[in-house]
């Protein structure tokens, strides 16, 4: 009897000890990665909150689909803005530049009767030229980016009004162009299984989950073979399940409406490319080096000027893309297009963990930041909250994000 009792109690002690180790592990991991995971947690909390307060409307396929399309043109700017802030600059001109370039695209198609692809290419090239000019002012003439791009803000606002002056609003009639902001990827025709579900989207989602899992396992193996510390097995499995569930859930919600939009495809490709450049290539490393210590970078043969030019050119090109997405979504170019986009993009970057003092930040984080800001807008709209309160709430979230950044960094130093 006694023996058996002891056996049971020691077994219980063992499981509880395992649990304690497990909880300690989670605590430790959370504390170490709080900067990186903070915004994911924030996004989940915000989504859960609005889902409850709107009785599920927020998480409906239709709303999430619209939310992604609305986030698209800000997300594109946020990607470029991340790089600009990493090298300790700022670009205030992107909002009206985006509006102006949207009007240029509309004019090219409607008045100059250029083919749609030529119009898009032309718009992107003009965007790169505009970025080159900002790069010239900031990198070559050493004018503070704040002042140089404030001039751009004024100038492009004027240019937008000039282009749209004759008619006020330029209506875009080209279907291909309008599909960029409103269209969805085609589905295979209904073959009886899963009616009402977008099967191509579902298939892509499954592919992405598989890619995520295989990639995570490969990385873990590689890290282990280099003798680096990796997540414990149980935490690793939880991470895999959590990640897969998130992608799977998102896919399921999206495939319940019209599937993956072209906007989402563009943003996904953009994030993939920029993330790869920033994390894996020499160019990305040089950008971070310039952000961390420009003098050191210069001494080591990295041209700060060249990097500045490249980043502003990329920002100009992405402004053009944002303008195209916005004009396409509303099937027109208006005199007020692009108003306050720059501030939304900057806020998205800060919420997404980009450090205001430069050198730190990830493209993926800024995308999450853009989603946080857009979820707030969408959710509060659904709840019928007055627009003036919406601004206040978004301001508080922005301040909270920057305070979070500063405090977690200071703690790390100690």
């Amino acid at each position, binding site marked *: 009897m006694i023996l058996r009792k002891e056996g049971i109690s020691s077994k219980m002690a063992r499981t509880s000890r395992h649990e304690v180790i497990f909880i300690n592990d989670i605590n430790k991991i959370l504390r170490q990665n709080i900067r990186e995971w903070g915004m994911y947690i924030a996004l989940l909390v915000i989504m859960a909150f609005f889902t409850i307060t709107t009785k599920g409307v927020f998480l409906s396929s239709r709303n999430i689909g619209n939310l992604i399309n609305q986030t698209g043109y800000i997300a594109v700017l946020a990607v470029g803005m991340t790089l600009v802030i990493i090298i300790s600059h700022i670009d205030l001109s992107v909002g009206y530049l985006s509006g102006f370039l949207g009007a240029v695209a509309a004019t090219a198609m409607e008045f100059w009767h250029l083919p749609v692809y030529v119009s898009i290419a032309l718009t992107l090239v003009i965007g790169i030229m505009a970025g080159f000019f900002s790069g010239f002012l900031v990198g070559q003439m050493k004018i503070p980016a704040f002042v140089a791009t404030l001039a751009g803000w004024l100038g492009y606002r004027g240019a937008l009004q000039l282009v749209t002056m004759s008619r006020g609003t330029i209506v875009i009639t080209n279907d291909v162009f309008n599909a960029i902001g409103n269209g969805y990827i085609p589905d295979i025709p209904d073959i009886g299984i899963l009616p009402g579900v977008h099967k191509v989207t579902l298939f892509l989602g499954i592919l992405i989950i598989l890619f995520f899992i295989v990639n995570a396992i490969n990385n873990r193996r*590689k890290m282990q073979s*280099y003798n*680096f510390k990796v997540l414990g097995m149980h935490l690793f499995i939880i991470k895999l399940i959590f990640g897969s569930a998130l992608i799977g859930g998102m896919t399921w919600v999206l495939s319940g409406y019209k599937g993956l939009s072209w906007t989402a495809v563009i943003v996904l490709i953009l994030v993939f490319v920029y993330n790869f*450049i920033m994390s*894996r*290539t*020499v*160019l990305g*490393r*040089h950008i*971070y*080096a310039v*952000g*961390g*210590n420009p*003098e*050191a*970078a210069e*001494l*080591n*043969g*990295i041209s700060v000027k060249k990097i500045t030019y490249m980043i502003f050119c990329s920002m100009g090109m992405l402004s053009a893309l944002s303008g195209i997405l916005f004009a396409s979504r509303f099937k027109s170019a208006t005199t007020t297009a692009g108003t306050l986009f720059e501030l939304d993009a900057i806020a998205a970057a800060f919420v997404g963990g980009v450090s205001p003092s430069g*050198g*730190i930040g990830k493209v993926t984080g800024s995308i999450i930041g853009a989603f946080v800001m857009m979820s707030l807008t969408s959710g509060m709209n659904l709840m019928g909250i007055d627009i003036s309160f919406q601004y206040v709430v978004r301001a508080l979230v922005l301040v909270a994000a920057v305070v979070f950044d500063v405090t977690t960094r200071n703690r*790390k*130093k100690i």
Partner: protein
Amino acid sequence: MVKAIPVVEMRNIKKSFGGVHALRGVDLVLHHNEVLGLVGDNAAGKSTLMKILSGAYIPDEGEIFIEGKKVHMVNSWDAHQQGIEMVYQDLALANNLDVAANVFMGREAVSVKLGPIGVMDEHYMEQETKRLLDRLKIDISSVRLKVESLSGGQRQAVAIARATAFNTKVTIMDEPTAALSVAAIKKVLDLVRELKEQGCSIIIISHRLEDIYQVSDRMMVLRHGRKVCDTPVTGDIDTFREHVVAYIVGARDDFAEGGNKQ
């Protein structure tokens, strides 16, 4: 006996900034595997001389020979190509990057090249950095630590390690012990000894005579843009200090004539 070719020889270097003559014809010789201490008061011209050697300034007059070959350097990249590396006083490290990224900054190893975009070989860089730190007996737990989380002494060690990593012929250190604690100074000096042991040629600029007395083979004093003393480090610290300080403050100025007579 054939005299070995010095690794660096600077002859009659002159440099003025406007009306200020920072250097009025200075000669400098650094032999292989030698540690040369460069001392002098503020504005004596030691930093200017080293900035010329590291390519940051172009001299108005004078010639520079690296291993007997005359070179013409117009920027720090040229100097880098010649195997001359300078460790700056204000620590030219990027705090937001890890140790390995700092060691390889500006010369990242590439595994695949996609047109103008090179994909980095992180594994290679990490292994090489680890090897480098082990070789120099620098105690840093992981090469993936961000530099901002290191102590002042560790940062200085990383900066020095980076400067000596890539077939460097001459390492110039500008005030390597400034703003460090006593324990950290000892570590940096140990590192200098270790580097000499492994065959490096080093020039150290410092105000702290005691520090470089311990590691230097020879000491050179500049005053008002002229070389006023060039002497092997011998004797005990007190006599040596007295001897050198006299030249630093200008109490003695008999070197130039003596040098000519020899």
